[in-house]
């Protein structure tokens, strides 16, 4: 199967941008990506896009140009960006188009998301009795994990501390100020053991990527980042995922573990070969648990890994070098694409003051969304 290459990347800064709609921010990102690739919008043969709160992604064609291209709106919760890329990469593999775009944007209201029970095939009494709050899931999963694998509260704080530190080095991040250990550790309890500064918040932003085939890259004579693998999985029976009203007697590996395993098999490499990674950090516990679910360490080894600073930009496996979801906030449609944008910058050596040293060659991204969706990518310079 022909390899897929990323030849254009674009981002609108995440955070709050008064006066610009979510769609405006997506269009901004799309134009940046086109400039980066040296292409025009009319060159794009197929597009996949998503947004939760800013309307149909396809409406971006009003501003980009009504070229008549196939444009597919999709939505898979917080994993929407990952799914757009998965679909666009498969469109290139199939030969459906020479150039494909994955685009995502959003502009959410302040405060936590209020998920709909009805849209998730969950009875309405679950939300009416206060059992369908997304943050509860993170806390319940983490509380059990800390008990089973001896993860300390101190380690939770250190993950948040790193996110804000990395965000302070990223001009496109929302949270660009360092938050001290003390402020994080003493911030308001939201869902025990998770405190205010340990969470990412819904935000605004846009991101776009342009894909083509390896053959086309050679013809064009341009530099590209290659997608060695792109895999997506939904939850399987017995895994512990968001919104579950009961859990099976025998808990099974998550959608994340399954997607990661498939990606490593498909790329023919292992977690030890990855130089820089993006892991869904909806809150600090997610980053900790997803590290092991993606295969980067054994369950429980995160405690020493994080205490020894190995996930810092200067560490052995730098995680969320741009500040991740915690420092960037989460515009759902764009978030998974922001992760790939950052890995492309790192592999191209363009990450500025947060650049991982020694020219990273292989990167990894993982995004997770409700109600149990995971998309992962393995990216390489050659």
């Amino acid at each position, binding site marked *: 199967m022909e390899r897929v290459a990323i030849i254009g990347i674009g981002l609108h800064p995440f955070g709050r941008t008064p006066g610009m709609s979510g769609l405006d921010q997506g269009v901004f990102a799309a134009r940046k990506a086109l400039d980066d690739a040296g292409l025009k919008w009319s060159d794009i043969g197929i597009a996949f896009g998503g947004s939760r709160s800013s309307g149909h992604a396809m409406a971006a064609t009003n501003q980009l140009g009504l070229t008549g291209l196939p444009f597919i709106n999709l939505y898979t919760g917080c994993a929407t960006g990952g799914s757009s890329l998965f679909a666009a990469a498969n469109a290139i593999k199939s030969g459906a188009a020479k150039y494909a775009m994955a685009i995502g944007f959003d502009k959410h209201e302040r405060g936590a998301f209020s998920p709909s029970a009805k849209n998730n095939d969950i009875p309405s*009494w679950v939300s009416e*009795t206060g059992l369908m709050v997304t943050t509860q899931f993170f806390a*319940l*999963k983490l509380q059990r994990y800390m008990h089973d694998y001896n993860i300390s509260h101190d380690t939770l704080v250190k993950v948040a501390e790193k996110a804000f530190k990395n965000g302070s080095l990223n001009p496109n991040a929302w949270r660009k100020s360092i938050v001290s250990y003390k402020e994080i550790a003493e911030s308001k*309890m939201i*869902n*025990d053991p998770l405190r205010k500064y340990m969470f990412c918040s819904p935000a605004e932003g846009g991101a776009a990527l342009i894909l083509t085939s390896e053959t086309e890259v050679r013809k064009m004579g341009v530099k590209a980042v290659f997608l060695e693998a792109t895999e997506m999985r939904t939850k399987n029976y017995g895994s512990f995922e968001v919104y579950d009203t009961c859990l099976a007697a025998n808990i099974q590996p998550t959608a994340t573990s399954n997607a990661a395993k498939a990606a490593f098999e498909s790329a023919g490499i292992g977690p030890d070969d990855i130089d820089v990674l993006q892991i869904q950090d909806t809150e600090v516990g997610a980053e900790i648990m997803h590290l092991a679910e993606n295969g980067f360490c054994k369950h429980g080894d995160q405690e020493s890994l994080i205490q020894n600073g190995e996930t810092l930009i200067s560490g052995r496996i730098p995680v969320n070098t741009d500040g991740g979801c915690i420092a960037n906030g989460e515009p759902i449609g764009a978030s998974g694409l922001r992760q790939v944008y950052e890995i492309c910058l790192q592999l191209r050596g363009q990450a500025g003051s947060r650049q991982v040293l020694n020219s990273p060659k292989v990167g990894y991204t993982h995004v997770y969304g409700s109600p149990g969706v995971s998309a992962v990518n393995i990216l390489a310079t050659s």
Partner: protein
Amino acid sequence: MDTVYENLVFDDNGLVGSQCIDCKEYFFPKTKSCSNCSSVDMTNKNFGTKGRLWSWTTQNLAPKAPYFLHDIKEDYQIYGVGFIEMPCGVKVKSRLQVSTVKFEIGQRMELKTSLLEKPNGETLPVFEFRIEKE
């Protein structure tokens, strides 16, 4: 036993879910089909009133609508949320009654039916678990 609301069935004698006749897996609340083996042959199963705390958290902020008490801003009552491992092995998500005793994984828990009440007298029946009284 009463159906309290849609597919939610409970009273002081237990919490009722489903068991798949083909693969024997358990589900809560009652469900029309089995997400393990795709069977549509399901039977009711009373999980009883007692179990052990498998995981827990607290809801320190009032959830947004459609939470029944979302508009009660003053005197917000923190409640717990947990998974209770029932004797048959299924883990059921439930509200937890908070008390002076801290939650700990493995604690013995018991079912307690209760009511969420608004100042205007409107009520919503709920099931909750609390740490079992010695």
